[in-house]
């Protein structure tokens, strides 16, 4: 729905409308063509599956970030929150493996704990932001440092590793497939669909956009602005928890370097997808496309040695800017 409206007003052609919403997908398609041209392996289903599966963490986190950003906030703490939750999860599961045993129950306990921590961490971000009336940038910059420190502390500066017996049980959550599609991709898809429904079909989603568009108007329309804002951080926390649940079985470990810069990637995915940083709009499928694009760029760079490895970052930067240019070019402004 949000995608249709502008066209109706401007009486502009359908084309503009479609291009604008489709922008990220066009950019994604172009990127895929580029990838295939560089190395045909790119388009192999094995490679695409790898890429898509990898994009699931950032993608799931970015779904949460879409909520926060559309309501006019920002959350810089997601990467270190993910590291912290991974760490606690691993410690807890390693602990329960002794009492509960090497079984799914232990894994479920870990997952439950992850969700609880994600919700709590999100709630903390939200409450400090709204009750303290502090810019979310500062609050989450602070909590970013806090979570990062805590995981370093828990790991004693090193790495927390999941007990090897448990890995066998937990492993399929990352490496397994269902109907031929890897579980992380399913999770990404389900989270995105739910996210889209909540943003576009429920009152909460509508309130996020209203607050992001104009918080005063929202307040005058009898919306509990603080509560909705806080909830967006809780949703973000939940998404981080889900991403963590998928992340942990991949390498079975967490350290001080886990999740570094994920926040920038998640925010970039959201913005590449067409959601405005200042709030008031949301393009959830755009976010999904953005997240996939980001992991695809890294993949393409690994498939060629035409470009000096030193310049990876530059190529990445150029592609991000061009991708956004491509999708913006359809707009009139």
């Amino acid at each position, binding site marked *: 729905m949000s995608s249709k409206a502008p066209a109706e007003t401007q009486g502009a052609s359908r084309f503009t409308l479609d291009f604008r919403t489709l922008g990220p997908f066009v950019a994604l398609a172009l990127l895929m063509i580029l990838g295939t041209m560089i*190395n045909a*392996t790119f388009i*192999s289903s*094995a*490679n695409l599956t*790898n890429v898509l599966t*990898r994009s699931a963490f950032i993608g799931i986190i970015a779904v949460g970030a879409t909520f926060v950003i559309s309501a006019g906030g920002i959350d810089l703490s997601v990467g270190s929150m993910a590291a912290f939750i991974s760490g606690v999860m691993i410690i807890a599961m390693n602990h329960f493996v002794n009492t509960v045993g090497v079984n799914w129950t232990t894994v479920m306990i870990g997952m439950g704990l992850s969700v609880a921590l994600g919700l709590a961490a999100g709630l903390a971000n939200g409450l400090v932001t709204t009750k303290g009336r502090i810019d979310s940038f500062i609050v989450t910059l602070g909590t970013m440092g806090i979570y990062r420190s805590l995981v*370093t502390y828990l*790991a*004693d*500066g*090193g*790495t927390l*590793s999941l007990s090897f017996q448990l890995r066998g049980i937990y492993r399929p959550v990352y*490496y397994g497939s269902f109907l031929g599609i890897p579980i992380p991709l399913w999770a990404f898809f389900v989270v995105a669909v739910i996210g889209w429904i909540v943003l576009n079909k429920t009152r909460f989603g509508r309130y996020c956009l209203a607050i992001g568009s104009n918080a005063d108007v929202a307040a005058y329309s009898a919306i509990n602005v603080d509560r909705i804002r806080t909830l967006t951080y809780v949703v973000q926390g939940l998404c981080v928890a889900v991403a963590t649940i998928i992340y942990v079985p*991949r*390498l079975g*470990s967490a*350290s*001080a*370097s*886990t999740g*570094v810069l994920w926040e920038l990637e998640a925010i970039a995915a959201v913005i590449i997808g067409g959601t405005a940083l200042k709030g008031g709009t949301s393009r959830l499928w755009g976010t999904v496309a953005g997240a996939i694009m980001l992991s695809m760029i*890294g*993949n393409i760079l*690994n*498939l060629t*040695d035409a470009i000096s*490895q*030193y310049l*990876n970052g530059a190529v990445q930067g150029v592609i991000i800017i061009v991708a956004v240019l491509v999708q913006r070019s359809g707009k009139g402004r």
Partner: protein
Amino acid sequence: QDQVTIGVSIPAATHGWTGGVNYWARVTADRLQEQHPNINIVLLTAGSAGEQANDLEDLVAIHNIDALVILPFESDPLTDPVDFVKQSGVFVTVVDRGLAREGIEDIYVAGDNPAMGRVSGEYMVEALGGEGKIVILRGIPTVIDNQRFDAFMEVVDETDIEVLDWAYAYWNRDDGFEVMQDFLARFPEIDAVWAQDDDIALGVIEAVKQAGREDELFIIPGAGMKEVIARVMEGDRLTPVNVLYPPAMIATAMEVTALVFVSDAPFMGTYIIDSPLITPENAERFYFPDSPF
């Protein structure tokens, strides 16, 4: 005996190896302070070269140190700041990364980065019988990484081993995993991987397992993380050996520095810490289950 304050400045625990450095620095500090009541140790960690320069200033200005043990974040940028400390009359011990100018430090406890690359290369050549296709995963673009890489290539270049490609994996498991996934997708035939670092290697192992290509290749990690050494001890086919680059060198350096103050024996000079090959036979000697690394 007079009170002696020793400042220890090391990089923050941002990845496995520095985590190990932090661990050894802490336990050594505790032990030395206990053994020698007149020794007081101030331990500071820095997230960047700039921060480490700040820490040096603080160690001198606030803590009034008599000796400094430093594992520089990077050699070049810290040469001048360490020189400053030296000029203020402090005894200086440099660990691992040598300064860009000679003659500043009193003691140099050197990790041997080129040796690490060379030993890895030599094992690679031997294990592959002088021919085969390999990929390399490197750390963070730094001098250390360059030294290891150049020494490795020097050995390998002489043989028929083909380096298919290399990429940075930032001493990080996630990057190791992703880069290796892509290498596996791109190259149908890989005989060996030089992962250069244990964190990277652990990511590589998962990627190889996922691709079901455990039987076709082996991995040379590096540093001496306990998990990886455990694998070597068990005789894991995928990681037959490891190449030591011990974070415990910080402990050696602190120890020697403390001795300078508690005994009268001269301890100046350079102490080279070897980078031996860790094999199933000798692995036990390098296994420290209490260390986080």
